[in-house]
């Protein structure tokens, strides 16, 4: 199977990213030396920065915390996160607090994230929850290109938003699209799409957003995407147990078409009544992967 996006669509996308005036941009290149990962390149501009890196355990994984000095995304804001994790390096990327999107009368706030994962590299992307305020619209696009030997975790939590009256789902629109491609071992071959994960919520467009098929009476959603060649049946079984034991209404499945260049994909989709219920499930899964694959201690993000 192939299919990596038509060349025309891809080049126009690249051009549009290159021409965008970013409200904030963060470019981070993480490399590995003597078993320890570090930022070999770091550039930030505008309303995005990272805090001083942390080493939360003895694995050598570096943890960076993204902060938004402006406090929130506003109308027509455009943010770029460009992350490269080089051969053998390991990065945990999180946020300092919830991502807040205020009213966006000037147009949706957007976040573009591009990720490139080298051979044997690791990315654990575990941001805080997303809160879109009344009258806000938010579009998030994430694109990952990974080596077949890399390891990817993407975890997202979406709240019912915020409004002064306490009403849930008072925002206008939320769109999150993630596309993961696997780079060929032979550079002459073409990258192959592994999976596309989509979430789109337009509260006014759905008859009863909380009802059957949509939120099923819950308020929060979670998306967990795992891509790694080592997601075998035994591990999948274990992840299924974690899903069942969690305080969420969740499904787990083997996603992705085939196993491009040997990479497997597992997706967990959750509904819950709180951020913490989804976060606890995501943590349980990440900790299981850390322990199995790297003998790494549980991920304990310190946020104050």
């Amino acid at each position, binding site marked *: 199977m192939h*299919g990596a996006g*038509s060349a025309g669509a891809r080049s126009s996308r690249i051009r549009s990213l290159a021409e965008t005036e970013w409200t904030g941009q963060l470019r981070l290149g993480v490399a590995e030396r003597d078993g320890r990962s570090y930022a070999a390149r770091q550039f930030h501009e505008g309303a995005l920065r990272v805090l001083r890196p942390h080493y939360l355990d003895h694995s050598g994984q570096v943890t960076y915390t993204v902060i938004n000095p402006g406090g929130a995304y506003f109308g027509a804001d455009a943010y770029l996160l460009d992350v490269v994790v080089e051969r053998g390096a390991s990065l945990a990327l999180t946020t300092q607090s919830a991502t807040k999107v205020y009213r966006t009368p000037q147009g949706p706030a957007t976040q573009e994230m591009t990720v490139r994962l080298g051979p044997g590299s690791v990315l654990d992307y575990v941001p805080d929850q997303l809160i879109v305020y009344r009258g806000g619209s938010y579009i998030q696009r994430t694109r990952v290109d990974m080596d077949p030997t890399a390891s990817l975790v993407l975890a997202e939590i979406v709240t019912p938003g915020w409004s002064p009256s306490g009403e849930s789902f008072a925002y206008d629109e939320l*769109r999150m699209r993630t596309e993961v491609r696997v780079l060929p071992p032979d550079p002459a071959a073409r990258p192959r*799409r592994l*999976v*596309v994960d989509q979430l789109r919520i337009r509260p006014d467009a759905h008859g009863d957003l909380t009802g059957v*098929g949509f939120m099923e009476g819950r308020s929060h*959603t979670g998306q967990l995407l795992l891509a790694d060649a080592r997601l075998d049946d035994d591990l999948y079984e274990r992840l299924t147990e974690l899903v069942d034991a969690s305080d969420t209404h969740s*499904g787990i*499945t083997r996603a992705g078409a085939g196993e491009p260049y040997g990479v497997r994909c597992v997706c967990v989709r959750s509904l819950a009544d709180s951020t913490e219920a989804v976060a606890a499930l995501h943590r349980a899964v990440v900790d299981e992967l850390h322990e199995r694959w790297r003998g790494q201690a549980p991920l304990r993000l310190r946020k104050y």
Partner: protein
Amino acid sequence: MEPSLSGVLGLMQLTDSALPTGAFSHSLGFETYMHAEQLEDRESFSAWLEMFVDQQLTHTDALAVRLVYAAEDFERVEDLDDLVTVQALPRQIREGGITMGGRLLSIGARSYPGEWVQRYEQGVVEERLHGHQATVWGVLARELGVPEDTAVASHVYATVISLTQNAVRGIPLGQNTGQAVIRDAQHWVGRAVAVSRDLVAQGIAEEVLGAVAPGLEIAQMNHERQRARLFMS
């Protein structure tokens, strides 16, 4: 553009619920709700089906058919076949789409061997392409000269009819109830045509392709592990 009589007859053949694609063995998620005793009568099944048309069929199948109609070359169709397949997260939905699409493709290629249909079949035989039902139908309908809106409507409607027939057997509902649901569903099919057309006009068809409600996706995932299943999805 009016389709030729041969185009109409081809459309009727390929969207007939008796076409042996295996659609009779897929609930596409409603069996999970059935098992939870949430679908027991006309009202509850109608509500589920309307949600399914608004979410899954509008944002996946209808958009895929329209994007095939907009394709300028077959490489674009190959890319859409891949895109519509990988966006289906629940394994049974993805595999069902490929299985039913494969059968539709082999029947269609034999009966209406247009250039793209033959290239599509060749690609599936060589395992370069998946053969997703929605893109396969888009190619067949396009080569039969079926107008785009009709191609979208007939595919969505065919899925509605087979799901309702499956619900009549599975839940069960009475035959007359099933026909009443199908009549009601014509409004939702019309909405799927209009909403998908609007998404194309806004230029975001490809970007939102596959945006399906989370509750439905969870039910489709959980069907994999349900005991005593009547349906394959």
